[in-house]
């Protein structure tokens, strides 16, 4: 009888363990699928660029206003450019700008949050006021003004402009995390272990909010991409290149919607949606890991 009991017990424990790992994988499933989708999008664009021989930027390289065919998979636009090539190239460029802006913005937010939040005092006061100002300013309007004023917008400039407004929200949220983390016993004890502030931030604070950081990063990149698309659709994007937003700009300029040229304006919209969706999945997965309550515990 005792053997049966312990055998049952072992089975129960195994079942519990499997259930537990499934929960963590569920979080990871979000991350996994998000990343997969993003990777697929990039691979698709890269492959597309490789296969399709047409130039996405050069005007008049192909006949205008052709509907989709076996030669031009998505047809051509009113400026004589292959739309499928534009889609692939545009996806890569959009992602480039979005991630660049996202990384810059995130790094700024990181520094503001940690140096302000950890040290407190006057520095923190100034940084907080700065953050609040950037948060409450109507971003798009300012971006439009800046973009309209700056003469030549290339990709790096565009990324910087967008980053300038993308950092505020994550800075504020991360600072809140830092403030609450700072009061934990083990942080005080690391001070008593002789560690200096930088070591404490790197060794004890960042590892403990890593899932949050990843989640915020995804949010920043999404926000950056939204600003980017917004500016480009209004014609304020970088010149002489193609991004998904710029595709939409040209589509609007040539009344693609009224003319029912669905193969022009719909694919970039779908692509943008897929990109945002993949970022969302990734971010949601990190949220689930960071916050056990969402795990259903």
């Amino acid at each position, binding site marked *: 009888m005792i053997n049966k009991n312990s055998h049952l017990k072992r089975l129960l424990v195994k079942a519990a363990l499997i259930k537990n790992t499934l929960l963590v994988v569920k979080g990871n499933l979000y991350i996994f699928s998000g990343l997969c989708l993003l990777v697929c999008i990039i691979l698709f664009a890269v492959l597309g660029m490789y296969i399709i021989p047409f130039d996405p930027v050069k005007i008049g390289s192909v006949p205008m206003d052709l509907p989709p065919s076996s030669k031009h998979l998505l047809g051509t636009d009113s400026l004589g450019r292959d739309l499928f090539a534009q889609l692939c190239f545009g996806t890569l460029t959009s992602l480039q700008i979005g991630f660049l802006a996202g990384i810059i913005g995130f790094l700024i937010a990181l520094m503001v949050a940690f140096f302000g939040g950890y040290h407190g005092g006057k520095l923190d006061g100034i940084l907080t006021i700065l953050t609040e100002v950037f948060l409450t300013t109507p971003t798009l309007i300012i971006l439009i003004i800046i973009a309209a004023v700056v003469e030549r917008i290339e990709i790096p400039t565009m990324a910087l402009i967008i980053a300038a407004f993308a950092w505020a929200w994550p800075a504020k949220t991360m600072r809140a995390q830092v403030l609450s983390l700072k009061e934990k016993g083990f942080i005080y004890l690391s*001070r*008593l*272990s*002789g560690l200096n502030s930088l070591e404490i931030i790197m060794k004890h604070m960042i590892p403990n909010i890593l899932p949050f950081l990843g989640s915020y990063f995804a949010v920043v990149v999404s926000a950056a991409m939204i600003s980017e698309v917004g500016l480009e659709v209004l014609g304020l994007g970088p010149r002489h290149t193609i991004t998904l937003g710029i595709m939409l700009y040209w589509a609007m300029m040539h009344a693609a919607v009224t003319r029912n040229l669905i193969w022009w304006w719909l694919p970039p919209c779908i692509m943008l949606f897929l990109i945002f969706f993949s970022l969302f999945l990734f971010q949601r997965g990190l949220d689930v890991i960071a916050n056990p309550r969402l795990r259903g515990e």
Partner: protein
Amino acid sequence: MSEILKLNNVTKIFSLGGLLKKRRVIAVDNVSFSIPKGKPTTIALVGESGSGKTTVGRLVLGFIKPTSGKIFWENKDIYKMKRSEWKLYRRNVQAVFQDPYESLDPRYKVIDTLMEPLKKFKIANSRSESLKMISETIEAVGLRHEILDKYPHQISGGEKQRILLSRALLINAKLVVADEPVSMIDASLRASILNLMKDMNKNFGLSFLYITHDISTAYILADSIIVMYLGSIVESGSFEKVVSNPRHPYVKVIIDSIPLPDPKRRWKSAIKLREGEGGLTPKDMMKFRLRCKFCDRCAEAKEVCWEKTPPIIEIDKDHKVSCFLYA
């Protein structure tokens, strides 16, 4: 006799409120005490919430700076120390906090947490030496070696507190500031932690500043006691003397109100205490600094108690009271 720790007229005032309306709270008011050198002592720092005892702990640990007054470690002002002296001070004064669940970094195994101060203070010469030291210390606090490989969420609250105590032993600290180390632990499990602290005091030469609101637990460990009320020390001295013969009206009430686990000796009469002007919440106390902090609740308060700060009177060799009744 010289002291290892000395607080001289230490005051800490916090300014609360935003940019416009400031409210000042006197958390610690003119507190002085010391820990003698040579003989490892346990001082119980007793008081209710709002008494300032936690703030004193943080001042001693160097986490906050006093508004006025000085703190000396080995006869040196800690805010005038050189870098190397400050590092030594940090190593020698360690802490155990109330909440064991927030005291260990959840991302690191126990062994990594213990290695950290060893590495930083350059105590061991090699990794193998560190491992040996850690292993011996873990045994000394009554834990098994398996615990070194575990993560904090896999061990109990009591075991966590032991690990924190072992940390102090490991780096050869001289003083441990223990802020309510057992209040979040069940009664039946407290004994082992308290006994460990007593053991560390007697056999390993560590002094303790044991901060608590529960005098009964302090009884097991403490040699001397300091009772605080709203930031001031009201009575201090040898634990036995103060507890068996309390003089200050507040201390008398506290000791009398401790429930005894003996149904045959119950409280006979209702306690003699007036309801003060706001219970124990220190409001804008700058206004009320020049009087005994207990005067609004004291059943034996005289007129002078409302007008001047009471002096410190030595009743006995190691028994001091701050009260006009004995002036």
